[in-house]
C-alpha cells in the first residue's frame, strides 16, 4: 500500500464510473466525424462539452445520491487525493475526447480533401472549444459540491454557463457600443468568462478540499435541505399551525423555498435575457406558461400545499418575468443614457412600461391561477395543465389591455380578482375534501369565467384601432422621401394583400423579394416589432409592410437629417430592441449635431472668411461624410467646402499678384521686365489678348481684376450653396420656397451676383422632389467669362426652364442629369451670354 497505489485505485474508480459514457461519446463523435453531417470540429467540441458537463456535475453529487459517500469517507485517504482523482478523470476525459475528435476531424479533412468550413477560424474553434470545456468542468464541479442531486447539479451547471455567456455578451454590447460590429472573439466576454472560470475554480477547489467536513455549504443548504425534502412537511406545517409555532413554519417555508428559487431563477435569468433580447410578447407568454407549469409541477410533486404553490408559481415567475427583464432594461437604459445623450430626451420608457405591465399581469395570473389550480387538482399533470390553460386567457387579456393603451383596466378586472377570491376561499378549506367534491360548482364558475374572459378580450380587442389601407396610404404620404412610384406600389401591395387573405403566408413569401427590392433593405421577419406584429394590428402581414415602410422611411430620412421624423418613428416604435434603438440614435444624433454645426459654420464663413473656418468646415463635412456612409449629398457638401478653400487661396494669390504688378507699374517697370521678374506673372500674362495690347499695362491690371471678380463670384455662390445645404439638412431634403427664407437662421443676407448686382434666383421644379438634388456653382467656359450659375439638376424631371436653347445645348453635352440655367440676368443679356458660352465640359457631376 503506497500513496501511489491509493491514488491509482481512486483514479480507477472514477474512470470506471464515467467509462461507459465517455466511450459512447467518443464512438458517436468518431462516427459523426468520419461520416460528417456537421463540421467535424463542432462535433469534437459538442462531444467534449457533453462529457465535461456530465462528468463534472456528477463528480461529487453522485456519491451522495448513490449513498456511497460514507463508504468513501471511511477510507483512510486524504480529501486532496479524492478530489484530485475525480477532477483529473473529468479533465483528462474531456480534453482527451476533444483532442481525439479534433485530430480525427483534421485527418478526415486531409483525406477527403475537403476544406475548412468557411465561417470558422481554426484557432477560434479550438480556443472556444477549450474555453467551453473548462467552463463546464469548473461550474459543474462547483455545482456538484453545492447540490447533492446530480441531475439538479447538471441543470444548474448549464444554467450557470448560459448566464455567464449571456452576461459576457451583454458586456460586449457595452464595450462595443456601436453594435454594428462585434468582433468574432470579443475580448470582454472572453475575459469575463475567464474570470468566471477562475473564480468558480477557486471556489470549487476550496469546497472540494472540505467536501467531507462540516462546511457551511453543506450545513446551510444541501444537508438540511435533503432532510427537509424527505420530511412530510405538510404534516409538519399543520402541526406548526396548530401549535402556533409561526417561526418554525416561516423557517420551514424559507428552507424549502430556497431550492426552487435558486435553481429556476437562474434558468429564468437565461430565459428572460433571451426574452428581453427578442421582445416577443408571444414568446414571453410561452415562457411564463412554461415557468408556471414548472413551478406548479414542483409544488404539486413535492407537497401539494397551497403555500408552496403560492410561492413557487408566483414569486419565481415574478422574479424571472418581471425583475430580471426590468433589471436588464435598467442596465441597458443606464448604459444608453451614459453613452448616448439622445436618450436623456427620448428613452424607451414606453417599452419598459409596457413590458413591466405585462410582466406584472403575468405574475398576477400565475399567482392566482397557479394557486387555484393547485387547490383544484390533486394530480401533478392536472395541476400543470389547469394552471397553464387558465393563465393563457389572463395573459392574453393583459396583452390586449396594455397594447390597447388602457392599462388602468388591467388590475380592475374579474379575470384576476375572481381566481384570487376563489383561491382564498378554497385555501381556507384546504384540509378538507370539499374542493374535490365541489367540482360542479367549479365547472360553473369556470364557465362563467371563460365567458367573461372571452367577452372582455373580444370587447377590448375590438377597441384597438386597426390600420386600414387608407390609413396606410395616409401614413405613407407623410413621408417625403418615398417616391410616387413607391407609394403606388405600396398601395397596390396592400390591395393585393386584401385579395389574398386565404394564403397570406405564401403570398408574402412570393412578394418578399419584390418588397425588398422596393425598399432596398434586407427585410427579415425577425425585425418585426412585436407590438405591431401581434397586438395592435389585426392584419399581421400588413404590419410587416408598415414596419418595413417605417424603417425604410427612417433610413432615407436620416440621410437628409430629419431628426424629427426619426423621433416620430421611435415614438411609434416602442418595442424597438436596444440594438435597433442604438442604431436609430446613431443615425439621428449625427445629423442633429452636424446640422447645428454646419449652420454655425455657414454663418461664420459669411462674417469671417478665414482659413481656419474653412478648414473647420471641411473637417466637419468629412466627419459627416464618414458617418453618413457615403451619402451623396454629404459628399457634395464636403466638396463645396473644399471649393471655398480653393477659391479663398486663389483669391489671395490674385490679390497679392495684383498688388505686386501695380507696384511695379507705378515704378515704371515695363511689361517685358515684369515677365522676366516672376514666372507667375509670366503665366498671368500669357494670354492672346495681352499680346495684342502692347505697352498698355492697364490690360494686365484688368486681367487680374477680372480673375479676382470671378473668384469672388464663385465664393458668393458657394456660400449660398452652403446655406441651402444647411436648410436641406433641417428640412428633410426639401428646398426653401425662396432664397429669402434663408435669411436669419442660415444667412445674414442674401448675396448678389457680382457681375449683375442682381440677387441670385432659386428655381425649383414643379413636382415633388423625391430623388437627389444636385447643386453646382461653376464658372462656365474655358475663359471663365460667363457669370456664375446656381445650377440645380434633377434626374428625369422636366424643369421647364425659360431658356429652351440652353436646355438643348446642355443635353448636347451628353450629361443629361445636369441642367444648368443662369440666374439673375436680364433676358437679353442672358441670350448674349449664352451665345458666347462654350460647352460646359468641366462640370462635375456627382451622383
Amino acid at each position, binding site marked *: *500500500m503506497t500513496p501511489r*497505489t*491509493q491514488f*491509482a*485505485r481512486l483514479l*480507477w*474508480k472514477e474512470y*470506471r*464510473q464515467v467509462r461507459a459514457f465517455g466511450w459512447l461519446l467518443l464512438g458517436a463523435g468518431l462516427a459523426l466525424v468520419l461520416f460528417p453531417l456537421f463540421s467535424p470540429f463542432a462535433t469534437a467540441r459538442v462531444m467534449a462539452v457533453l462529457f465535461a458537463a456530465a462528468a463534472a456535475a456528477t463528480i461529487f453529487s453522485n456519491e451522495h445520491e*448513490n*449513498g*456511497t459517500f*460514507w*463508504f468513501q*469517507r*471511511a*477510507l*483512510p*485517504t*486524504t480529501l486532496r487525493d479524492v478530489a484530485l482523482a475525480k477532477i483529473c478523470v473529468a479533465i483528462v476525459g474531456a480534453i482527451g475526447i476533444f483532442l481525439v475528435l479534433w485530430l480525427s476531424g483534421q485527418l478526415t479533412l486531409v483525406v477527403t480533401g475537403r476544406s475548412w468550413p468557411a465561417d470558422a477560424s481554426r484557432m477560434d474553434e479550438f480556443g472556444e472549444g477549450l474555453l467551453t470545456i473548462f467552463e463546464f468542468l469548473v461550474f459543474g464541479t462547483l455545482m456538484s459540491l453545492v447540490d447533492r442531486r446530480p441531475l439538479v447539479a447538471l441543470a444548474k451547471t448549464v444554467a450557470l454557463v448560459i448566464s455567464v455567456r449571456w452576461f459576457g455578451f451583454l458586456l460586449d454590447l457595452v464595450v462595443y457600443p456601436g453594435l454594428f460590429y462585434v468582433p468574432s472573439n470579443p475580448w470582454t466576454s472572453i475575459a469575463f468568462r475567464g474570470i468566471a472560470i477562475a473564480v468558480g475554480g477557486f471556489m470549487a477547489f476550496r469546497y472540494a478540499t472540505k467536501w*467531507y*467536513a*462540516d462546511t457551511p455549504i453543506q*450545513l446551510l443548504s444541501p444537508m438540511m435541505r435533503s432532510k427537509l425534502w424527505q420530511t412530510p412537511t405538510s404534516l409538519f406545517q399543520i402541526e406548526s399551525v396548530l401549535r402556533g409555532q409561526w417561526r418554525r413554519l416561516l423557517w420551514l417555508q424559507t428552507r424549502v423555498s430556497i431550492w426552487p428559487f435558486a435553481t429556476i431563477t437562474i434558468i429564468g435569468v437565461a430565459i428572460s435575457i433571451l426574452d428581453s433580447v427578442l421582445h416577443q410578447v408571444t414568446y414571453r407568454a410561452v415562457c411564463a406558461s412554461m415557468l408556471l407549469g414548472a413551478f406548479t409541477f414542483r409544488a404539486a410533486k413535492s407537497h401539494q400545499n397551497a403555500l408552496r404553490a403560492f410561492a413557487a408559481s408566483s414569486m419565481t415567475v415574478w422574479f424571472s418575468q418581471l425583475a430580471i427583464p426590468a433589471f436588464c432594461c435598467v442596465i441597458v437604459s443606464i448604459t444608453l443614457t451614459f453613452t448616448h445623450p439622445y436618450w436623456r430626451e427620448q428613452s424607451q420608457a414606453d417599452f419598459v412600461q409596457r413590458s413591466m405591465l405585462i410582466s406584472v399581469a403575468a405574475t398576477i395570473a400565475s399567482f392566482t391561477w397557479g394557486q387555484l389550480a393547485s387547490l383544484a387538482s390533486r394530480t401533478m399533470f392536472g395541476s400543470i395543465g389547469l394552471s397553464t390553460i387558465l393563465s393563457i386567457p389572463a395573459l392574453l387579456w393583459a396583452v390586449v389591455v396594455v397594447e390597447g393603451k388602457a392599462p388602468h383596466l388591467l388590475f380592475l378586472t374579474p379575470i384576476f380578482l375572481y381566481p384570487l377570491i376563489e383561491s382564498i376561499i378554497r385555501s381556507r378549506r384546504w384540509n378538507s375534501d370539499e374542493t374535490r367534491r365541489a367540482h360542479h360548482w367549479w365547472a360553473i364558475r369556470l364557465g362563467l369565467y371563460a365567458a367573461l374572459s372571452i367577452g372582455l378580450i373580444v370587447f377590448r380587442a375590438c377597441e384597438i384601432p386597426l390600420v386600414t389601407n387608407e390609413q396606410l396610404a395616409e401614413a405613407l404620404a407623410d413621408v417625403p422621401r418615398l417616391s410616387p412610384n413607391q407609394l403606388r406600389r405600396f398601395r397596390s401591395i396592400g390591395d393585393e394583400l386584401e385579395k389574398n387573405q386565404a394564403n397570406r403566408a405564401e403570398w408574402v413569401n412570393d412578394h418578399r423579394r419584390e418588397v425588398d427590392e422596393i425598399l432596398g433593405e434586407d427585410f427579415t421577419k425577425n425585425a418585426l416589432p412585436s407590438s405591431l406584429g401581434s397586438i395592435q394590428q389585426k392584419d399581421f402581414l400588413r404590419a410587416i409592410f408598415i414596419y418595413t415602410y417605417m424603417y425604410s422611411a427612417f433610413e432615407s430620412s436620416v440621410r437628409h437629417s430629419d431628426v424629427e421624423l426619426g423621433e416620430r418613428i421611435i415614438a411609434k416604435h416602442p418595442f424597438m430592441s436596444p440594438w435597433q434603438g442604438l442604431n436609430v440614435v446613431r443615425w439621428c444624433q449625427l445629423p442633429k449635431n452636424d446640422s447645428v454645426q454646419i449652420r454655425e459654420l455657414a454663418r461664420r464663413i459669411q462674417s469671417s472668411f478665414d482659413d481656419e473656418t474653412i478648414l473647420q468646415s471641411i473637417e466637419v463635412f468629412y466627419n459627416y461624410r464618414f458617418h453618413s456612409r457615403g451619402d451623396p449629398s454629404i459628399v457634395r457638401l464636403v466638396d463645396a467646402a473644399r471649393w471655398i478653400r480653393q477659391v479663398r487661396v486663389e483669391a489671395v494669390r490674385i490679390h497679392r499678384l495684383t498688388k505686386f504688378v501695380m507696384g511695379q507699374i507705378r515704378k515704371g517697370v515695363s511689361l517685358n521686365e515684369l515677365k522676366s521678374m516672376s514666372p507667375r506673372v509670366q503665366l498671368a500674362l500669357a494670354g492672346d489678348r495681352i499680346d495684342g495690347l502692347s505697352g498698355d499695362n492697364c490690360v494686365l491690371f484688368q486681367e487680374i481684376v477680372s480673375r479676382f471678380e470671378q473668384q469672388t463670384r464663385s465664393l458668393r455662390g458657394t456660400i449660398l450653396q452652403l446655406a441651402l445645404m444647411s436648410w436641406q439638412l433641417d428640412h428633410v431634403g426639401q428646398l426653401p420656397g425662396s432664397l429669402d427664407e434663408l435669411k436669419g437662421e442660415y444667412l445674414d443676407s442674401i448675396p448678389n451676383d457680382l457681375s449683375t448686382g442682381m440677387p441670385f434666383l432659386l428655381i425649383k421644379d414643379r413636382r415633388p422632389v423625391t430623388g437627389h438634388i444636385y447643386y453646382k456653382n461653376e464658372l462656365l467656359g474655358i475663359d471663365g467669362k460667363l457669370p456664375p450659375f446656381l445650377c440645380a439638376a434633377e434626374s428625369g424631371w422636366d424643369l421647364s426652364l425659360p431658356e429652351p436653347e440652353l436646355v438643348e445645348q446642355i443635353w448636347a453635352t451628353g450629361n443629361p442629369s445636369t441642367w444648368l440655367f443662369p440666374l439673375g440676368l436680364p433676358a437679353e443679356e442672358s441670350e448674349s451670354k449664352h451665345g458666347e458660352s462654350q460647352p460646359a465640359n468641366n462640370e462635375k457631376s456627382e451622383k
Partner: protein
Amino acid sequence: MTSVIQFDSVCKSFRRKKVLDHVSFDVPPGVVYALLGENGAGKTTSIKTMLGLVLADSGSARVLGLDCRRQDLEIRRSVGFVAEQPQLYPWMTVDEVGWFAAGFYPDGYFKEFVRQIDSFHVPREQKIEQLSKGMRAKVALALAMSHDPQLLILDEPTSGLDPLVRREFLQSMVDRAATGKTVFLASHQIAEVERVADYVALLRDGKIAVAGRLDELKQQLVQVQITVRETMVPLPDLNGHVVASFRKGRQWQALVRDFSDDLVRSLQSHDYVDHFESRMPSLEEIYVAYLGSPPPANPDLPAESTA
C-alpha cells in the same frame, strides 16, 4: 489498561444545536461497547468524531491512543467502520470492491477479504447491486474487518436486516471480542445490544445519561413491583433511591437504585402496601427509565426522577 476509545468532555455543535455536550466515556480493549440513544441523540456524531470526520469543538477524543483531530488518517487505517445501511458502489463486483479497498490498507487485505467473503457464502463475481441487503451488510463487514482492526466501529449495524442475518451478524461481534479486539456499536436495538454488549452508555440529547458495565448496571438497579391497597395511594417513600416509576392501577413499577434491606423493611412497614416483589431489570427497562425522563442534573450520577 489503556482505553481503546477515550472521550473526555467532548462538545460539538452544529450552528446553534448542541449535538454533543461534555460527553465522556472510556472503552476498554477486548469488549463490546454499545452506545444507546434515541434518534438524534448524537450517536453518529460521536462515531464521526472518533473517525476524525467531524472535529470536536472542545474536549479530547482519542482512539487507539491517537488524537482524533490530528491523526484521523491513521485512525481510519487502524479501525474498521461499518456505516448505517452501508452503500457500496453498485456497479462494482464483490471482488472489485475488495480490490479497490485493498489499495488503502496493508498487504494481505484482499486475501483476508476473499476468505471472509467465502466464509459468508457471498458470490464474489456478483455485482453489489445484485446482492441482497443481508449480503451487502456482510460485504461491508468483511471490508471493515479484512485488515484485522483493533477496533471495529459499527453504526446501527443490524438496521434493516432480517432476524437470522442479524443474529449471525451479532454473533460475529461477540466472536471478535473474544479474540481480544474491541467492538464499538451504536444502536437503538436494545434487546440485541443486551445480548452482546459488555459495556453500555446511554446518550440523551448529547449528554451521557449513564455509562458502565452492563452487568454492574443491572446489579445496581432493581425493578420493584409494589401493589398498594387503593389506586390513589402514592408511591411509598424510598429515600430518594427511585430512578423512575409509573403506576398501573394499584400497581407501581419502580426502578430503584441500591435496593437494600433497609428499603425492604421500609416497604414492609407501610400499611397500605399489600405486596411487593423485586427482580433484576432488563436493559430496555433501564433504557426507558433513563431516556424516558428528563435529563439528570449531574451526568456522572444516575438520575432520580419519577414518571
